[in-house]
């Protein structure tokens, strides 16, 4: 064995690419992969949920209407699957949109009140109260709806029906028990009010002082300042907040289930019993006793709800994106 004590061969000069990818070494690179992996995991989870929905819904969507009518309770005879889901989609949208129409202006009012009108101490307490209300479980809203709200609004609905019955929403006979969509919409509105308020309030508070002062310095009254500086700045945030609220209203199960007298019609009579039903409540109502194809049909309605939510989100994004150029963010 001959050992030559030669110096180690000079290492070939390493040429590093001076790209951004190389500035992350060691754990930084690992960290990037962990974060990216989490992002991918979200997609995988959602794909799994969607896949699950589609696989379980598929038998119902492809079955003949005769088979469905046989297996699924409440399935109208000789109708397509769409005719079966249609009234449910209609009822879901009607309840949620009514709730949104009631809640959004009020929520914006409260948000402005907290961010720009109320004395600072009071505003803090109110902000806290609103956060707390966002956390009240829907079962409790349901209990409250039955025990307190329905008896309270019953006479109001009767009055509306009697004197404003010509208006399509108030037509039909008013229910004596007030277990109708109007009551449900009010409960949903109360329920989503804290969410919309909480998000809008945060956005309004973020309005740059600069813009508020610019408006005031031009001789704007407080409301004019809100109109010129705060509302335009918060517009996209309020839309997001409303969509968040709409999402919760669309998917709300327990409160609707406990309050509404369901029906399966395309009906705008929100004071009349047994006219509409929402998808989530329908699933919860019939799922316990469902078996076989009926389960598939229920999950197919769940898929419909999923698609509605998807569409709503896409619409909201489109609206926000169109206004992006003029948005307050820079």
């Amino acid at each position: 064995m001959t050992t030559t004590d030669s110096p180690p061969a000079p290492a070939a000069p390493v040429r590093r690419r001076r790209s951004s990818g190389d500035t992350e070494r060691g754990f930084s690179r690992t960290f990037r992969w962990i974060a990216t992996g989490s992002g991918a995991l979200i997609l995988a989870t959602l794909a799994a949920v969607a896949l699950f929905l589609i696989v379980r819904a598929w038998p119902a969507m492809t079955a003949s209407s005769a088979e469905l009518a046989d297996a699924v309770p409440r399935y109208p005879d000789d109708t397509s699957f769409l005719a079966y889901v249609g009234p449910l989609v209609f009822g879901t949208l009607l309840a949620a949109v009514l709730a949104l129409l009631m809640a959004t202006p009020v929520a914006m009012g409260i948000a402005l009140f907290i961010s720009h009108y109320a004395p600072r101490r009071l505003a803090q307490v109110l902000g806290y109260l609103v956060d707390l209300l966002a956390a009240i479980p829907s079962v409790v809203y349901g209990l409250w709806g039955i025990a307190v709200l329905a008896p309270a609004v019953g006479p109001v609905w009767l009055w509306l029906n009697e004197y404003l019955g010509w208006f399509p929403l108030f037509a039909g006979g008013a229910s004596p028990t007030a277990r109708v969509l109007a009551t449900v919409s009010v409960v949903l509105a109360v329920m989503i009010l804290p969410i919309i308020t909480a998000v809008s309030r945060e956005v309004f508070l973020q309005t740059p002082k600069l813009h508020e002062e610019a408006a005031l310095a031009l001789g704007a009254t407080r409301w004019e300042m809100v109109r010129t500086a705060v509302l335009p700045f918060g517009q996209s945030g309020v839309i997001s907040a409303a969509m968040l609220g709409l999402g919760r209203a669309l998917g709300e199960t327990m409160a609707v289930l406990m309050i509404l007298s369901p029906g399966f019609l395309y009906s705008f009579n929100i004071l009349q019993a047994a006219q509409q039903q929402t998808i989530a409540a329908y699933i919860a109502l019939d799922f316990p006793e469902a078996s076989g194809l009926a389960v598939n049909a229920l999950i197919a309605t769940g898929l419909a709800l999923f698609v509605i939510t998807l569409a709503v989100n896409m619409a909201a994004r489109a609206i926000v994106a169109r206004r992006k150029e003029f948005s307050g963010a820079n």
Partner: protein
Amino acid sequence: MVGALALSLAACGSDPGADEPNGEGSETAMDLSGDLNGGGASSQESAMEAWRAGFQGQYPDVTVNYDPVGSGGGREQFGSGAFSFAGSDAALDEDEMATAEEICGAGGVIEYPGYISPVAVAFNLEGIDTLNMSPETIANIFAGEITTWDDEAIATDNPDADLPSTDITVVHRSDDSGTTENFQEYLNTVVPDVWTYEPEGIWPIEGQESAPQTSGVVSAAQAGEGTITYADASQIADLGTVAVGVGDEFVEYSPEAAAAVVEGSPRVEGTGEHVFAYDLQRDIEGTYPIVLVSYHLACATYEDAATADLVKGFYTYILSDEGQQAAADSAGSAPLPTSLTEQFLPSVEAITAG
């Protein structure tokens, strides 16, 4: 944060009676422990609570769970083996029986009516506690043919009552329920020419008020003047009730009168050895014909010895006088007549492992 809270609470919380010495159960020969999971009809839930409480009181190491997932869910999960026992408002049909027999193996399925409860026809009219109604009248009211309380059909049967001209508001169950199915079965059997709908768990008529669960229909009925509904008799609170016409007389509901219906009805022929299904007779004099009959399901043999012992012990307890009395007290159900329990007990006692 959550964990810390849980820990601090863990220090002071306990199951009631968990550390009390075992009193009543000491005389029994078997020493049972473990979990037993079942589920099904929510109509039985109150009774099940009493049974579970009583059984767990005898065997403190046992936990019996009953998921009130509904009859269909109970039958399905019993058939898939998820539930060791189940409650169902309807007897198994042929397909379900076949599936269940596959799971249960050679011994077959045990099925008997374990819970019998009168279904009251209840209404909310100020100042009126009880009304007589013939089956035709009841059917016509619920079908929406009779629409006011001072209708002639009601008035003739109640000459003394001061009936208002209020509109009748029918409230039915919005969920799929055994109560609905049993109520419709009654109407369809007794007055088939008026009630032409096929009896099923979902109410067939659209456009009427409805609410989920017994408590839901009761509170809906309480909320409006002039409402009428059908509900488990133990839950109707302060609503007025209908005495139902049977033959020439009108019968108020009572658990005994309800149990008499099953007692007087013939067992369905051609089923398995341990299957006690009944073809209910709705016109026996002196009985209250609107009953909810809910079945108990079990296997005659279980693979697992512990499960076999638990099911056997639990069902034996249910059929004992003590068990029947506990259910009657807490759920207002009808104690099973001895003539019936004597028939069921041998099947239950024959449960084995293997």
